[in-house]
């Protein structure tokens, strides 16, 4: 099993070891500890405080817009970083500089649009 598929065997073995350590630890714990449950012991542990409400939590929909904007700028940065390292190098020049600002202008249209449509105000 050497060659191309051989390298995957390492991954499989590592996975098996990981599962083994985790399952073995839990199993050892289970066999060594005393087991005397009460109602209090079975409640969900929430930092020592009595649990309140349910597991299903809702988050504000207005955060959604900011998540979106974050994604836009994050993607933006993915293009900006490699560009920033080369645009001053020989062979590149004004064209490279202008091209990036054309790209940024297109994104700016989106921001401008969102601003005009009052998406950015905290409602």
């Amino acid at each position, binding site marked *: 099993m050497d*060659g*191309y598929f051989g390298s995957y065997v390492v991954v499989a073995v590592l996975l098996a070891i990981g599962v083994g350590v985790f399952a073995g630890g839990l199993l050892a714990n289970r066999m060594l500890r005393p087991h005397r449950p009460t109602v209090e012991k079975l409640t969900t542990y929430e930092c020592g405080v009595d649990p309140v409400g349910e597991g299903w939590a809702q988050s504000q929909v207005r955060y959604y817009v900011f998540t979106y904007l974050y994604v836009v700028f994050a993607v933006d940065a993915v293009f900006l970083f490699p560009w920033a390292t*080369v645009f001053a*190098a020989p*062979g*590149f*020049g004004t*064209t*490279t500089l202008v091209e990036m600002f054309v790209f940024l202008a*297109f994104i700016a*249209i*989106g921001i*401008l*649009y969102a601003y*005009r*449509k009052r998406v950015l105000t905290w409602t």
Partner: protein
Amino acid sequence: MGGGPMIQSIDYWAIAGPLVLALAAGLVLLLDAFVPSRWVSGAVTLAAIVAAGVVIAVQAAQGTTRGTFCIPGSAAGSESCSFVLDRFTLIFAGLTLAAGAVIVLLSMGELASGRIPAGEWYFLLLSTLTGAVLLPASRDLIMLVVSLELVSLPVFALTALRRFDGRASEAALKLFLVSVVSTAIMLFGVSLLYGLTGSVHLDLLAAHLRDGVSQPALMGGDGAGVLAVGVVLVLAGFTFKVAAVPFHFWVGDVYQGAPIPVAALLSVISKAAGFAGVILILTQALPNQSWLWTPIVAIVAALTMTVGNVLALRQRDAVRMLAWSSVAQSGYILAPLAIGSGAAASVTYLVFYAAMNLGAFAVVTRFPGLIESHRGLVWRSPVAALALAFFLICLAGLPPGLAGLFAKVVVFRELVDGGLGWLAVVMAINTVIGLYYYLAWTVRLFAGRPEGAPSVGSRAVVTAIGLTAAVAVAFSLAPQLVLSAVG
């Protein structure tokens, strides 16, 4: 990095068509932010489509092949370009823009209620059109995938813009999931093709594959296994987009739930873009591997036309019927590709199909609902009813609908000449099945008394019906318009 300039020169005249559309999309978005008016947005959109159409027409008249975004090619002195403007590109661009103009007219009817935000609608429409014009010009895998996504992404939002309609949201979600999965599958295939050859340009891919797969170490063999998986995955991704069997399930619900202009867009523009992609990858990147993909394409084509027709037989809703009939038509378009060299016949059929199908959708935009509600339409609205009858007869492929007949003859001839007699027989049987439901609908138009189903839409929709009818009649009287253009 070697010496010399690192910047590719851009031939702005070559990319003028998609550039006009993209700039207009930005303009429409800004206009909507500052002077919201659905008439202004509509007029700007229509003007942009006409302007891009003029650019395409002038480029076609010049008749030269231009390429831009080029890198040095496989042979000394040659170039491999990411964007190529040739006859294939121009035909698809022209088809897209003509269909786009009709869909803008249909949208004006849809937007007249004022419940759908017009600025967003037109912006998304222009974005889709930009992608659809860019796609046939793309000659590298990355450009192809990006343009295909540019076609698909705005369509989810367009479908969902009827936010007050639960079915539209459902349709949008279905379309989104199907499309995203298909893109993922296709990207996997694309990555295998790239990994195998080390190039993304279609002509370089073909050169690498012709000279023997270049990285035999990858599989310990000649890489044929990886190549087959890659080709099948790419094909599977595209069959989702063109709604071919076995990836056709989404069509019925999505077409019915979407606004009718969007259904028309899906069935013509999005489908044409998908076919352009398939044809480019198969004929430009994998011409020497046709032994691998022709059997797959033949089987998919046979299944697609059969399943589409059988499902269409039992539909009672007009849009749903057109949805399944367009699946069947996809099968006819796919069939000549199974010859390996039949791309021209596919394109010919696609052009005829676009005119007839858009026309049928235009009439259905005006008279939506069940097919039964079209009973006696000819007494209420003779022109629309006659136009619909003509489109349906064209789709069935009977005289006097000569456009459809010529299209079918072209495909049949290609199949018989190419030695795929069995596929021609399957297609003949399917044509007969198709006759049943197209004619049953046509007969209803003339039978009985009108029941007074509402007519929707404005003069724009009537104009769209007139335009498509004129084009279908022109194609029927002078099919050489298309035949010589596709050549």
